[in-house]
Protein backbone atom coordinates (compact mmCIF):
# COMPACT_ATOMS: atom_id res chain seq x y z
CA UNK A 1 0.00 0.00 0.00
CA UNK A 2 1.80 3.19 -1.16
CA UNK A 3 2.11 6.05 1.31
CA UNK A 4 1.31 9.52 0.08
CA UNK A 5 1.28 13.03 1.52
CA UNK A 6 -2.18 14.32 2.46
CA UNK A 7 -3.27 17.40 0.57
CA UNK A 8 -4.84 19.05 3.60
CA UNK A 9 -5.73 18.66 7.23
CA UNK A 10 -9.34 18.14 6.15
CA UNK A 11 -8.35 15.04 4.17
CA UNK A 12 -6.62 13.60 7.26
CA UNK A 13 -9.60 14.28 9.51
CA UNK A 14 -12.06 12.93 6.91
CA UNK A 15 -10.17 9.65 6.61
CA UNK A 16 -10.18 9.21 10.38
CA UNK A 17 -13.90 10.04 10.53
CA UNK A 18 -14.54 7.47 7.77
CA UNK A 19 -12.71 4.78 9.72
CA UNK A 20 -14.67 5.57 12.86
CA UNK A 21 -17.98 5.48 11.01
CA UNK A 22 -17.15 2.09 9.48
CA UNK A 23 -15.96 0.28 12.57
CA UNK A 24 -17.38 -0.80 15.87
CA UNK A 25 -14.19 -0.69 17.94
CA UNK A 26 -12.55 2.56 16.96
CA UNK A 27 -9.14 3.26 18.42
CA UNK A 28 -6.46 5.76 17.48
CA UNK A 29 -3.20 7.19 18.72
CA UNK A 30 -3.39 10.22 16.44
CA UNK A 31 -3.59 13.13 18.87
CA UNK A 32 -1.70 15.79 16.92
CA UNK A 33 -3.40 19.14 17.05
CA UNK A 34 -4.30 20.99 13.87
CA UNK A 35 -1.26 23.29 14.05
CA UNK A 36 1.12 20.33 14.26
CA UNK A 37 -0.63 18.55 11.37
CA UNK A 38 -0.50 21.66 9.19
CA UNK A 39 3.16 22.19 10.00
CA UNK A 40 3.95 18.55 9.07
CA UNK A 41 1.98 18.80 5.83
CA UNK A 42 3.78 22.03 4.88
CA UNK A 43 7.15 20.46 5.67
CA UNK A 44 6.24 17.38 3.62
CA UNK A 45 6.96 15.12 6.60
CA UNK A 46 3.48 13.60 6.97
CA UNK A 47 2.53 10.60 4.84
CA UNK A 48 -0.47 8.37 5.04
CA UNK A 49 -1.95 5.19 3.65
CA UNK A 50 -5.42 3.80 4.14
CA UNK A 51 -7.78 0.99 3.31
CA UNK A 52 -11.40 0.30 4.25
CA UNK A 53 -10.67 -0.39 7.90
CA UNK A 54 -7.59 1.56 8.94
CA UNK A 55 -5.51 4.66 8.32
CA UNK A 56 -1.81 4.69 9.04
CA UNK A 57 0.17 7.92 9.13
CA UNK A 58 3.91 8.44 9.37
CA UNK A 59 5.62 11.60 10.51
CA UNK A 60 9.18 11.60 9.28
CA UNK A 61 11.85 12.62 11.78
CA UNK A 62 15.63 12.89 11.85
CA UNK A 63 16.18 9.93 14.17
CA UNK A 64 13.03 7.88 13.60
CA UNK A 65 9.64 7.99 11.95
CA UNK A 66 6.60 8.15 14.23
CA UNK A 67 3.64 5.98 13.29
CA UNK A 68 0.04 6.96 14.00
CA UNK A 69 -3.04 4.96 13.20
CA UNK A 70 -6.81 4.97 13.34
CA UNK A 71 -8.48 1.60 13.26
CA UNK A 72 -12.12 0.58 13.21
CA UNK A 73 -12.25 -3.13 13.90
CA UNK A 74 -8.74 -4.73 13.91
CA UNK A 75 -9.50 -6.44 10.58
CA UNK A 76 -6.44 -5.24 8.70
CA UNK A 77 -4.41 -3.03 11.02
CA UNK A 78 -1.49 -5.45 11.08
CA UNK A 79 -1.32 -5.57 7.27
CA UNK A 80 -1.55 -1.78 7.03
CA UNK A 81 1.18 -1.30 9.63
CA UNK A 82 3.41 -3.82 7.89
CA UNK A 83 3.16 -1.76 4.70
CA UNK A 84 4.88 1.23 6.31
CA UNK A 85 8.34 1.42 4.76
CA UNK A 86 11.40 1.55 6.97
CA UNK A 87 13.94 4.24 6.15
CA UNK A 88 17.52 2.96 5.65
CA UNK A 89 19.21 2.84 9.09
CA UNK A 90 16.02 4.24 10.57
CA UNK A 91 13.28 2.85 12.76
CA UNK A 92 9.59 3.26 13.36
CA UNK A 93 8.20 4.29 16.73
CA UNK A 94 4.59 4.22 17.77
CA UNK A 95 2.81 4.47 21.06
CA UNK A 96 -0.49 3.34 22.37
CA UNK A 97 -2.19 4.61 25.50
CA UNK A 98 -4.84 2.78 27.47
CA UNK A 99 -5.42 0.07 30.00
CA UNK A 100 -3.72 -3.29 29.53
CA UNK A 101 -7.03 -4.89 28.53
CA UNK A 102 -7.87 -2.17 25.98
CA UNK A 103 -4.49 -2.13 24.32
CA UNK A 104 -3.57 -5.84 24.26
CA UNK A 105 -5.41 -6.70 21.00
CA UNK A 106 -3.90 -3.68 19.24
CA UNK A 107 -0.40 -4.38 20.50
CA UNK A 108 -0.79 -7.90 19.11
CA UNK A 109 -1.43 -6.33 15.69
CA UNK A 110 1.70 -4.22 15.99
CA UNK A 111 3.74 -7.28 16.97
CA UNK A 112 2.35 -9.16 13.94
CA UNK A 113 3.53 -6.24 11.81
CA UNK A 114 7.12 -6.55 13.09
CA UNK A 115 7.04 -4.13 16.01
CA UNK A 116 8.36 -5.05 19.44
CA UNK A 117 7.59 -3.62 22.87
CA UNK A 118 10.30 -1.03 23.52
CA UNK A 119 9.29 0.42 26.87
CA UNK A 120 6.21 1.63 28.71
CA UNK A 121 5.18 4.52 30.95
CA UNK A 122 2.56 4.65 33.67
CA UNK A 123 0.31 7.64 34.13
CA UNK A 124 0.27 9.26 37.59
CA UNK A 125 -1.81 12.14 38.87
CA UNK A 126 -1.96 14.28 41.96
CA UNK A 127 -4.96 16.27 43.11
CA UNK A 128 -3.96 19.61 44.57
CA UNK A 129 -6.18 18.91 47.53
CA UNK A 130 -3.87 16.11 48.65
CA UNK A 131 -2.18 16.90 51.91
CA UNK A 132 1.53 16.51 51.29
CA UNK A 133 4.06 18.63 53.05
CA UNK A 134 6.49 20.38 50.70
CA UNK A 135 9.10 22.91 51.69
CA UNK A 136 7.88 26.47 51.52
CA UNK A 137 11.29 28.01 50.99
CA UNK A 138 12.33 26.68 47.64
CA UNK A 139 15.78 27.63 46.34
CA UNK A 140 14.89 26.76 42.76
CA UNK A 141 14.28 29.56 40.27
CA UNK A 142 12.87 30.04 36.79
CA UNK A 143 15.48 29.37 34.10
CA UNK A 144 16.94 32.26 32.14
CA UNK A 145 17.14 32.47 28.36
CA UNK A 146 20.91 31.97 28.52
CA UNK A 147 20.27 28.61 30.26
CA UNK A 148 18.25 27.28 27.32
CA UNK A 149 21.12 25.65 25.42
CA UNK A 150 22.43 23.93 28.56
CA UNK A 151 18.95 22.72 29.45
CA UNK A 152 18.44 21.31 25.95
CA UNK A 153 21.82 19.60 26.13
CA UNK A 154 20.99 17.93 29.46
CA UNK A 155 17.52 16.81 28.41
CA UNK A 156 18.71 15.42 25.08
CA UNK A 157 21.64 13.73 26.84
CA UNK A 158 19.78 12.12 29.72
CA UNK A 159 16.39 11.19 28.29
CA UNK A 160 15.64 8.49 25.74
CA UNK A 161 15.07 10.03 22.30
CA UNK A 162 12.73 7.26 21.13
CA UNK A 163 10.24 7.43 23.96
CA UNK A 164 10.50 10.78 25.75
CA UNK A 165 9.64 13.42 23.11
CA UNK A 166 12.90 15.35 23.29
CA UNK A 167 12.20 19.03 22.56
CA UNK A 168 14.15 21.03 20.01
CA UNK A 169 16.07 24.11 21.11
CA UNK A 170 13.32 26.48 20.04
CA UNK A 171 10.80 24.61 22.18
CA UNK A 172 13.14 24.87 25.17
CA UNK A 173 13.51 28.61 24.64
CA UNK A 174 9.75 29.06 24.39
CA UNK A 175 9.21 27.19 27.67
CA UNK A 176 11.97 29.16 29.38
CA UNK A 177 10.33 32.41 28.27
CA UNK A 178 7.02 31.12 29.67
CA UNK A 179 8.85 30.53 32.98
CA UNK A 180 7.80 26.88 33.11
CA UNK A 181 11.35 25.57 33.33
CA UNK A 182 12.77 25.66 36.85
CA UNK A 183 16.41 25.15 37.71
CA UNK A 184 18.85 25.03 40.56
CA UNK A 185 22.41 26.19 40.06
CA UNK A 186 25.87 25.27 41.14
CA UNK A 187 28.00 28.33 40.48
CA UNK A 188 27.04 29.49 37.00
CA UNK A 189 25.87 26.11 35.79
CA UNK A 190 22.49 24.46 35.92
CA UNK A 191 22.57 21.50 38.30
CA UNK A 192 18.93 20.35 38.17
CA UNK A 193 15.89 20.94 35.96
CA UNK A 194 12.14 20.67 36.31
CA UNK A 195 10.05 21.43 33.20
CA UNK A 196 6.28 21.53 33.32
CA UNK A 197 3.48 22.43 30.94
CA UNK A 198 0.33 24.07 32.09
CA UNK A 199 -3.17 24.35 30.68
CA UNK A 200 -6.01 25.84 32.67
CA UNK A 201 -6.34 24.00 35.95
CA UNK A 202 -4.07 21.18 34.85
CA UNK A 203 -0.31 20.76 34.71
CA UNK A 204 1.94 18.00 33.40
CA UNK A 205 5.46 17.42 34.64
CA UNK A 206 7.61 16.75 31.57
CA UNK A 207 11.18 16.49 32.84
CA UNK A 208 12.66 16.32 36.33
CA UNK A 209 16.41 15.81 36.31
CA UNK A 210 19.17 16.25 38.88
CA UNK A 211 22.61 15.81 37.31
CA UNK A 212 24.31 12.72 38.81
CA UNK A 213 27.11 14.66 40.52
CA UNK A 214 24.55 16.79 42.40
CA UNK A 215 22.22 14.05 43.61
CA UNK A 216 21.60 13.57 47.32
CA UNK A 217 21.58 17.32 48.08
CA UNK A 218 17.83 17.88 48.04
CA UNK A 219 17.81 19.72 44.69
CA UNK A 220 14.99 17.63 43.30
CA UNK A 221 12.94 18.40 46.40
CA UNK A 222 13.57 22.13 45.97
CA UNK A 223 12.42 21.99 42.37
CA UNK A 224 9.29 20.10 43.29
CA UNK A 225 8.51 22.56 46.08
CA UNK A 226 8.90 25.50 43.72
CA UNK A 227 6.75 23.73 41.13
CA UNK A 228 3.88 23.19 43.56
CA UNK A 229 4.23 26.74 44.86
CA UNK A 230 4.17 28.21 41.33
CA UNK A 231 1.14 26.09 40.48
CA UNK A 232 -0.78 26.61 43.72
CA UNK A 233 -3.97 27.27 41.72
CA UNK A 234 -3.61 24.11 39.61
CA UNK A 235 -6.15 21.44 40.47
CA UNK A 236 -4.54 18.46 38.80
CA UNK A 237 -0.91 17.47 38.30
CA UNK A 238 -0.04 14.68 35.88
CA UNK A 239 3.07 12.91 34.67
CA UNK A 240 4.29 9.77 32.91
CA UNK A 241 6.89 7.59 34.59
CA UNK A 242 8.73 4.64 33.12
CA UNK A 243 7.07 1.48 34.47
CA UNK A 244 10.41 -0.08 35.36
CA UNK A 245 11.57 2.97 37.33
CA UNK A 246 10.24 1.96 40.74
CA UNK A 247 12.47 4.47 42.52
CA UNK A 248 10.98 7.39 40.59
CA UNK A 249 7.48 6.05 41.13
CA UNK A 250 8.05 5.91 44.90
CA UNK A 251 9.38 9.47 44.83
CA UNK A 252 6.32 10.73 43.02
CA UNK A 253 4.10 8.87 45.47
CA UNK A 254 5.93 10.68 48.24
CA UNK A 255 4.75 13.94 46.66
CA UNK A 256 1.16 12.78 46.55
CA UNK A 257 0.95 11.33 43.04
CA UNK A 258 -1.04 8.14 42.59
CA UNK A 259 -1.01 5.67 39.73
CA UNK A 260 -3.75 5.99 37.12
CA UNK A 261 -5.00 3.09 35.07
CA UNK A 262 -3.44 4.25 31.83
CA UNK A 263 -0.18 2.96 30.41
CA UNK A 264 1.67 4.35 27.39
CA UNK A 265 3.16 1.44 25.45
CA UNK A 266 6.06 2.41 23.18
CA UNK A 267 6.49 0.13 20.19
CA UNK A 268 9.47 0.01 17.86
CA UNK A 269 10.29 -1.60 14.51
CA UNK A 270 13.83 -1.73 13.20
Amino acid at each position, binding site marked *: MPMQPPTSIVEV*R*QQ*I*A*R*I*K*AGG*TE*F*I*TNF*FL*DDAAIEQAIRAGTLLFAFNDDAVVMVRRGALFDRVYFADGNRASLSRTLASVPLAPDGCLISDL*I*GTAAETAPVIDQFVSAGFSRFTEFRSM*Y*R*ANSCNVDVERRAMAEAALEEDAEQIWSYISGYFDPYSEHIPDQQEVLTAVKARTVLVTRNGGSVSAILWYD*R*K*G*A*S*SILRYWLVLPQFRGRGLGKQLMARYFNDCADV*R*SFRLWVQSSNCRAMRLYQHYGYVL*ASRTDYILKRT
Partner: protein
Amino acid sequence: MNTVLKILSEIRPEFDFSTSEDFIADGMLDSLDVVTLVSAIDKHYRISIAGTEIVPENFSSTAMIAALIHRNGGRL
Protein backbone atom coordinates in the same frame (compact mmCIF):
# COMPACT_ATOMS: atom_id res chain seq x y z
CA MET B 1 -26.40 13.72 32.99
CA ASN B 2 -25.21 11.80 36.05
CA THR B 3 -24.00 9.03 33.77
CA VAL B 4 -21.92 11.52 31.77
CA LEU B 5 -20.39 12.82 35.00
CA LYS B 6 -19.66 9.25 36.10
CA ILE B 7 -17.90 8.47 32.80
CA LEU B 8 -15.89 11.70 33.08
CA SER B 9 -14.83 10.94 36.64
CA GLU B 10 -13.63 7.49 35.58
CA ILE B 11 -11.42 9.08 32.93
CA ARG B 12 -10.06 11.88 35.15
CA PRO B 13 -10.76 10.85 38.75
CA GLU B 14 -8.82 13.80 40.18
CA PHE B 15 -11.36 16.36 38.95
CA ASP B 16 -14.79 17.39 40.10
CA PHE B 17 -16.46 17.98 36.73
CA SER B 18 -19.58 19.39 38.32
CA THR B 19 -17.66 22.56 39.25
CA SER B 20 -16.39 23.51 35.77
CA GLU B 21 -18.15 25.34 32.98
CA ASP B 22 -15.50 24.58 30.34
CA PHE B 23 -13.61 21.31 30.70
CA ILE B 24 -11.24 22.06 27.81
CA ALA B 25 -10.30 25.59 28.84
CA ASP B 26 -9.83 24.39 32.42
CA GLY B 27 -7.40 21.72 31.22
CA MET B 28 -9.58 18.92 32.59
CA LEU B 29 -9.77 17.03 29.30
CA ASP B 30 -7.07 16.74 26.67
CA SER B 31 -7.28 15.22 23.19
CA LEU B 32 -6.49 11.76 24.49
CA ASP B 33 -9.23 12.06 27.10
CA VAL B 34 -11.66 13.11 24.39
CA VAL B 35 -10.99 9.97 22.35
CA THR B 36 -11.31 7.84 25.50
CA LEU B 37 -14.56 9.64 26.31
CA VAL B 38 -15.94 9.05 22.80
CA SER B 39 -15.19 5.36 23.12
CA ALA B 40 -16.88 5.18 26.54
CA ILE B 41 -19.94 7.10 25.32
CA ASP B 42 -20.22 4.94 22.17
CA LYS B 43 -20.19 1.80 24.29
CA HIS B 44 -22.49 3.03 27.04
CA TYR B 45 -25.16 4.60 24.80
CA ARG B 46 -24.72 2.07 21.95
CA ILE B 47 -24.14 4.83 19.42
CA SER B 48 -21.31 5.85 17.13
CA ILE B 49 -20.41 9.50 17.46
CA ALA B 50 -19.52 10.85 14.02
CA GLY B 51 -15.79 11.38 13.57
CA THR B 52 -16.41 14.90 12.31
CA GLU B 53 -18.00 15.72 15.69
CA ILE B 54 -14.86 14.84 17.64
CA VAL B 55 -13.82 18.43 18.20
CA PRO B 56 -12.98 19.94 21.60
CA GLU B 57 -15.97 22.30 21.79
CA ASN B 58 -18.39 19.37 21.76
CA PHE B 59 -16.83 18.13 25.01
CA SER B 60 -16.52 21.38 26.90
CA SER B 61 -19.39 20.80 29.34
CA THR B 62 -21.88 18.17 30.40
CA ALA B 63 -24.58 20.07 28.47
CA MET B 64 -22.51 20.00 25.25
CA ILE B 65 -21.75 16.29 25.72
CA ALA B 66 -25.41 15.57 26.36
CA ALA B 67 -26.35 17.44 23.16
CA LEU B 68 -23.73 15.46 21.25
CA ILE B 69 -25.12 12.17 22.54
CA HIS B 70 -28.63 13.26 21.60
CA ARG B 71 -27.57 14.34 18.06
CA ASN B 72 -26.00 10.95 17.51
CA GLY B 73 -29.11 9.03 18.52
CA GLY B 74 -28.38 8.32 22.16
CA ARG B 75 -31.00 8.53 24.90
CA LEU B 76 -29.92 10.10 28.16
